[in-house]
């Protein structure tokens, strides 16, 4: 039976790859960079939606924890990431390579420490708490409309 942790960690890897591609051509080929950045943001938004719309509510309902629980910090960091997406979009529009790369580095650090908390703690807890529903939850994640 697929675990939530394995499924979502694979999602992290996919987003990492999209991230690296979007970072590569900055300053050299802006139209390619813009296209790759859009792909990356779509992957991210889809992943974030899986957590916020499917997994977090199920976890919060099962454990009775919402405010003050681990998912609250995760939601706050999702918002920080979305703010960074907006700032990066501005850098793309302005064709500002330094700003773009600086923001990408910031996003990487935020994303990776965020993923660290999820992969080393939260997903494991979700699998323990939501184990019986995991197939159904993964199905619902896959069924989400693309961003």
């Amino acid at each position, binding site marked *: 039976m697929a675990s939530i942790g394995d499924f979502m960690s694979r999602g992290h890897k996919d987003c990492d790859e999209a991230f690296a591609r979007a*970072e590569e051509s900055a300053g050299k080929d802006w139209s390619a960079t813009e296209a790759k950045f859009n792909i990356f943001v779509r992957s991210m938004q889809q992943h974030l939606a899986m957590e916020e719309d499917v997994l977090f509510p199920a976890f919060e309902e099962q454990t009775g924890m919402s405010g003050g629980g681990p998912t609250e*910090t995760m939601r706050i960091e999702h918002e920080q990431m979305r703010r960074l997406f907006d700032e990066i979009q501005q850098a793309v529009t302005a064709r500002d390579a330094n700003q773009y790369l*600086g923001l990408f580095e910031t996003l990487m650090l935020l994303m*990776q420490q965020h993923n660290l908390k999820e992969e080393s703690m939260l997903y494991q807890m979700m699998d*323990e708490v939501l184990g019986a529903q995991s197939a159904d939850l993964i199905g619902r994640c896959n069924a989400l409309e693309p961003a």
Partner: protein
Amino acid sequence: MKPGGLSFEQAPPFSVPLRFFLSAPLFALLAALVALWQGAEVFDSRWSPATLAATHLLTLGCATMAMAGATLQIMPVLAGAPIAQPRLIAALVHAGLCLGTLSLAGGFLFGQPLLLESAAALLGATFAVFLGAVVASLARAPLANIAIAMLWLAMISLATTATLGLWLTASRGWGIALPAAAMRNLHPAWGLLGWTGLLVMAVANRVVPMFQMTPAYPLWMTKRLGVAILALLAAWSTAKWLDAGPFVLAGTAALALLYVLFAATTLWLQQRRLRRQPSPTLSFWRAGMACVIAAALLWTGAALLADAPPALAVLLGVLAIVGAALSLINGMLYKIAPFLAWFHLQSSGGAGRQVPHVKHYLSDRMQQRQLWLHLAALALMIAAVAWPAVFARAAALLFGASALQLFANLVAIAREYRRQLGLLAAAR
């Protein structure tokens, strides 16, 4: 499993780790000044007063200072359980490390038993507080995972290193007899291969794939290497204590092999990274890993020699401490400090005002400059082992310059953080 115990409470205030990070290069600078003053003697033998002083300024004042600060910082993220009373613990540990290290170095340099006695008391209390706080947090962790297990191993190693060190210091200070001469070799081994090495592995396991988007370490390595190293260290120590020659040699070779394996794997992973942007931190890591391999091979080679010249032990110290430990710590500081500046500015609100990105607080150019100083200093220190009279002071100067630049770079981050904090407050 206690879901209610899982807390990703935001990191301790910036001042908690920052004081450690700012102090570390100052102790490195102090070590450089000792070497500048004493000259060639520092590179002649590991036992000379100046060498002992400089070594501990580096291992305690610089390396352990940075690692302690980083550990206090990372506990909520890795263990899901923050340190209780982080401000108080940080203040006590930082003050204790500063005063204790200064006392210890002074005691070695000036041959003052009173300074050594003070050092033993101060450092004993400091490590008791630090270990108590970290272990309490680890014990409260709501889950078990590899990162937590590795931290436990690192703490066991630190406790062993500190106990041996205190005993050795007490022996010099109060003239207490040592139960075994081998303790003088067990202490650096546990400090470097245990405390430093295992903490680096715990961190590397996460940040190497993280920072450069490399593949993950092989699962068997992640799960088994730490325990294998600790077990081997214990076995090697026993053999050393009992002076069982062949077993000591076998233990040395086995430990060296595991470290070569780890360093080579790290370099290989980094070679296969997805992110190809140039990065000073990556360069620091590569230099550090190369020195781990060199030090491991040198250690094994020296163990095979019936009568190894004293210079080999000094070279080993240079490679392991400056080349490996300090390179890795240096590189990590350039990731951690800018991120924390950004993170704390973000958290302090600032509706409508953009917080500048991480590269704003410290440019790649300034990091690169310090990287070159560090590598040049390392090269000169290696040369100084071979020709102390010629290269010792030049090496000391360059190493001091590198430490000063690192300090200046970290201060720049702190300054910019404060400035941005002011701007955010004004915008509200």
